[in-house]
């Protein structure tokens, strides 16, 4: 029992360290260049795709769990992983695999954003 609690605690610690570390890298890039948020998101997603394709991201996911899947690079991991799994099943699934894997995230973002746009009004930005 105690060992189990320790393992769960350790998993949170790893998720915090790796997830925070990925955000830290992004913050350092933002501080020293003039990349905007949108570009950072695209580059980190692409980094996730590339790292997954060369087999480096899967070990990170196994190690850090949500620490590696929650950052946007995890979205790239999801896309590339879907494509790799699809490639085992043939041409059609190699093409469609990535977006199929990402469908949950994209659908959720569209549906929830729509609902929020129905409910909330744009507010003046307070500084």
């Amino acid at each position: 029992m105690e060992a189990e609690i320790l393992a769960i605690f350790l998993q949170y610690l790893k998720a915090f360290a790796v997830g925070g570390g990925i955000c830290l890298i992004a913050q350092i890039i933002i501080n020293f260049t003039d990349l905007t948020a949108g570009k950072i998101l695209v580059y980190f997603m692409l980094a996730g795709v590339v790292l997954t394709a060369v087999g480096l991201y899967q070990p990170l996911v196994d190690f850090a769990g949500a620490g590696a899947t929650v950052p946007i690079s995890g979205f790239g991991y999801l896309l590339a992983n879907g494509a790799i799994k699809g490639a085992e099943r043939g041409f059609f699934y190699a093409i469609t695999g990535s977006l199929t894997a990402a469908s949950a995230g994209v659908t959720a973002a569209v549906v929830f954003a729509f609902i929020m746009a129905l409910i909330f009004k744009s507010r003046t930005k307070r500084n």
Partner: protein
Amino acid sequence: MTGRTRENLNTNYLNYVKTQDPPTKHLKNCAAAFGVGGLICCIGQFIRYMLQYAGLTGDELAGSTSVILIFLGCLLTGLGVYDRIGRYAGAGSIVPITGFANSVTSPAIEFKTEGWIYGMAAKMFTVAGAIIVFGVFSGVLVGLIYLFV
């Protein structure tokens, strides 16, 4: 003595702006990004454990975790809380999947006034569209490479 050409005026002005800018607080910035980013990932880990406890496994578990995080990101954006977190945390709130949700919801709410189709729906994808375009394209490339190599 610098001549008053347009280029010189531009660089002079940019240099002037730089002297007036408050200096970037690198250490504070980075600590905030690390802390908030790590915390959001821990919330993700917590949701993952809860769903695991509820009996979900594999792709369903991973997908449901992201859906809940995206919901939270959209809700906090709608309430105006996420922008406040963002001002403090910088990349710590941009990079997690909740930041993706924020980048979809924020323009959707803001451009509602320009109509539902060209405003809300079209502007929803200003940032997310780029992510999906490059994501799908690179995903297809990876699929083809794995298929033929």
